[in-house]
């Protein structure tokens, strides 16, 4: 019986040496260790032996069985690994084939520009407020200290619905609306649509967008305006841009100024974007005129404020290099998709 065990072990060794596949290993296992396998037969035959012999033979048989199982295990895992590796090899793909397409849409460049501008001001603690596109003459002109005979009030410049109602020509009426609606201090930006009676061409659109800003509190100064706009310009156009305030005139601010930033394309050396000057005009601004504060129900002796307003299309055109304002309202999908 012992020799029989040795023979089985030898046979197992020999057969397993050539067993390369999981199937071959399995076949050997069944033949030797299965219900009708050679080793199982031997174990079954041990019933006839004396307890003494049973013990020694049992040990011998179990050790042979364990050895065969170990061998099988080793062979099986090698075969599995080989099979896996063959399978993976067969599954090789061409990774240079195109990926599956997931089409995302794009936000309109005007939306993107408004978001960018307002995000900068949000980070500086400004709230976003909005106002109606259809306005009264009082909010659009009178309350903003616009002279009664100012040409901007003409029907050649402003769209009217009646003597009293019009399409707002700027976002500034929201300044007065905010002063009337809100407690001090005020620190807001106002994005929105504006309308002027301009025939569309490459640089004019009868509808355009502005972002207005207004700060009102005790002790607000021109220096605060300068510092605020300088911070804005650096966050919006890059930390190395320089800013410059130039005297200007608006009925609703005094002193008034225009803000130039050093050209973010050429860095101030002069190029086609800045028309060789090295500077780009970005916005109009100034200290809120006392008459405007008064129209907003604010004591102009105690409080002061500053305001600024910029054209979104202009900023977008400069930033993205769009050469014709009409492209924004044609809504050609190819144009919008450029802003993905």
């Amino acid at each position, binding site marked *: 019986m012992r020799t029989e065990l040795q023979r089985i072990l030898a046979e197992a060794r020999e057969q397993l040496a050539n067993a390369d596949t999981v199937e071959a290993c399995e076949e050997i296992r069944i033949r030797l260790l299965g219900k009708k396998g050679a080793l199982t037969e031997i174990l079954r035959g041990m019933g006839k032996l004396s307890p003494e012999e049973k013990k020694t033979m049992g040990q011998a048989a179990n050790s042979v069985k364990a050895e065969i199982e170990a061998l099988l295990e080793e062979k099986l895992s090698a075969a599995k690994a080989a099979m896996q590796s063959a399978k993976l090899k067969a599954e090789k793909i061409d990774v240079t084939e195109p990926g599956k397409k997931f089409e995302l849409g794009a936000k309109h460049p005007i939306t993107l520009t408004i978001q960018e501008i307002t995000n900068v001001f949000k980070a500086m603690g400004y709230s*976003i407020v909005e106002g109606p596109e259809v306005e009264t003459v009082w909010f659009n002109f009178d309350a903003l200290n616009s002279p009664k005979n100012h*040409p901007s009030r003409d029907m050649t410049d402003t769209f*009217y619905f009646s003597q009293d109602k019009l399409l707002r020509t700027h976002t500034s009426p929201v300044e007065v609306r905010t002063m009337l609606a809100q407690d001090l201090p005020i620190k807001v930006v106002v994005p929105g*649509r504006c309308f002027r009676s301009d025939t569309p061409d490459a640089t004019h659109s*009868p509808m355009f967008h502005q972002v207005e800003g207004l700060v009102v509190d005790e002790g607000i100064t021109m220096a605060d305006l300068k510092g605020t706009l300088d911070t804005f310009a650096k966050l919006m156009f890059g930390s190395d841009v320089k800013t410059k305030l130039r005297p200007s005139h608006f009925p609703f601010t005094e002193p008034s100024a225009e803000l130039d930033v050093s050209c973010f394309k050429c860095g101030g050396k002069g190029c086609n974007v800045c028309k060789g000057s090295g500077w780009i005009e970005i916005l109009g601004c100034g200290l809120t005129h006392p008459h405007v504060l008064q129209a907003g129900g604010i004591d102009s002796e105690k409080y002061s404020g500053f305001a600024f307003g910029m054209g979104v299309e202009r900023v977008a055109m400069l930033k993205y290099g769009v050469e014709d304002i009409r492209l924004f309202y044609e809504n050609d999908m190819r144009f919008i998709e450029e802003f993905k």
Partner: protein
Amino acid sequence: MLVPVKWIKDYVDIDANAEEYGDTMTMAGITLETVRYFGKETEKVVVGKIEKIEKHPDADKLVVCKVDVGAGAPIQIVTGADNIFEGAYVPVVLDGGRVPGPLHGHEKEEGGSVIKAGKLRGVESDGMLCGPQELGWDDKVAPYISKDGIWILPEAFTPGTDLVTALELDTAVVDLDVTPNRPDWLSMLAIAKETKAAYGKPIELPDTRVQEKAGSAGGPPNSIRFAQQKKPSMSDYVTIDIRDTRCRRYVARAITDIKIEQSPWWLQERLMLAGMRPINNIVDIANFVMLEYGQPMHTFDAEDIAGKKIIVDASKPGDKFTTLDGKERELPAGTLMINDGEKAVGIAGIMGGLNSEVKDTTKTIVLESANFDADTIRLSSKEMTLRTEASNRYSRGIDPNICLEAANRFCHLVEQIGAGKVVPGAIDIYPEEAKPIVCDVRVSRINKLNGINISREEMVKYLEALDMKVEDTGDPDVMRVTPPTVRLDMKEEIDYAEEIARMYGYDNIPLTLPKMNTQSTVSRSWQIRELARGIMTSLGANEIQTYSFVSPRSVDMLGLDDDTWEKNFLTLLNPLGEETSVMRTVLMPEMLEVMGRNYSRNIDKVCAFEIGNTFLPSLIDENELPSEELSMSIGTYGAGEDFFSMKGRVQTLLEMLGITGLVFTAESEYGAFHPGRCARIQVPDRGGEMMELGIMGEVHPEVAERFGIQTRAYVCELNFEYIIARADIEKAYSPLPKFPSVERDIALLVDEDVEVGSLEAIIKSAGDALIEKVELFDVYRGKQVEEGKKSLAFSIVYRDRNKTLTDDDVQKVHGNILAELKSKVNAVLREI
């Protein structure tokens, strides 16, 4: 405003180049737009004197000139110009010379045009005579005598002299942008005063002394005539009667012995550089003084003033008048007019009349230097659509105090160039003198507003540099300031904050930030719009932005009934055109227009959305502002797009915004849509009542056709205000289920017209609380399904959150569902 640097240097001695000068003026508040240079790209161009003009032997329209160019024998030049004459001094381009161009009938060449000697119709031409345009001047400033021809130089320059040197042409003009609050800056003198203040240099004011030599004889005195002649006075020429208070001042002077001729070059040159055409000495002086002082001048031929009377009065209804441009114009009633004893002779402040203009034969003129109400001139000029240099200036406002000085300056120049003799005295009707607005200005307030800290002395220095008078008030903090009356803009203390800031220099103001502490907030509306844009772009849609105003026809094109609310437009009184004449009530038409435009550009797929305001007149009160409500449109066409892709986007958008319980109901009556492929979208409000959220569907083929979309297209319009109201964007946690779910699939055979929505509703209601999810996963028609029927396969997921469901539990509910389906819509269970 074109400002010749040369002209400013007549008053203030500055040595900056044009760019530096322009930058300095920019920081003073007069923004430099561009710098234009003259005398560039000009080589071998000399002064020539035409000695002889002969006909060209072979060309009727050409002549052959012998021209003295200072170099021995005259040269021969062939030209086609017809304004030349023997003895004329003209610019000559010598062989190989260069002019800036453009050459007559050609485009401007980069770097100028080179002229070569050659034959013209067989005759040698050694160079070219040229006109002002060829030397780089704008057509509209070419001297009248040289218009469309050769430039007839106004003086006898030495032949052969380099033209640029002779005419001192190497000069520059700065184009400065004058803000509307500073009409005084529309004059060289005011710019010079600003230059003086900016550079801290003295100013030399124009000479206005007048010798008044009318009546004195020219030539050898004739003792008899001289003795008989009394000294002339103004009353011999004109009397002035102001009958309308809108004329605030009228100064008249008279000049005799007028000799109309070309002005000297220095005068012509300044006009040309400043953008005006030299005409003759009298007109040129009037324009020169207007440019110098900002005071428009008008000259009448004294012989045309009937009754020697000038009456300023309003026109009567129906009056007509022929202006000196030869046009007869209807006068709006009440137009301020200048009349003589019989008739109108000028429209005040706008344009003189053809009947009294200065002619070559004019001997005596009456000069008007007047002031008219700004609004009056602005409105008249607008109403008549007649804008002139004079009306532009009057419209913006002129200080009446300069009338007399400007008139005297005119007379001085007349004497200086020998154009006539000035009658002694002036008529000056000035009912109410313009007074400066004296203002108390607090030093502390100016410093506080500007965020600077400068002394009173420094402020006084700045104000005095601007010709303002500063007096003490006894309070060291308060300055009493009197501005010159030309400064119509200086009205109150705040105006001085700007004057002092710009004199101090905006560059010198420090950079600080407001000290307040604020939290940034955004409105819910803003927040939801931002979210919706993010969701829509993730769903592959591009955002569009279209005009708030549209054509009323765009709604007609939707094929709606005539009386629908979509046609209740808010209409503009003065639109640019019909296309943009009403405020949009819905976004759909513009979405379709955009889709049509993209289709026409061969873009094979569109998936787009817009969120924007729609407008409806206020229903409550016409005086109220209209209602502005946000709406949202979605539009698609192209491969992969159909009703259900649109519906899927709508469902996903609303689901992401936390809006649940959507009900889609078939709609066949809305004209814009395919009657069988349109759904109204409803959602229960917080009280459970169904609210209309929007409409969607396949665009009716006729409507699509009208918008130029030749494929199936899909649009949707959603009430975005309602979305904002209903959106639930708070995130909430509910524990994950502890007990397993049970899934049952059923296939139901139903009549074709039974809607999936109704089956789902039946399943949900019969299944009660145990239903976790019902999902349609297959629709089958064809083999094994009889005609007129369809097979719908649903997957139903049951779950009890409190226990594991047994087969019996499920079977009870499931059986109930099947029974309900059978009884309500005759749905038969089919084997899958």
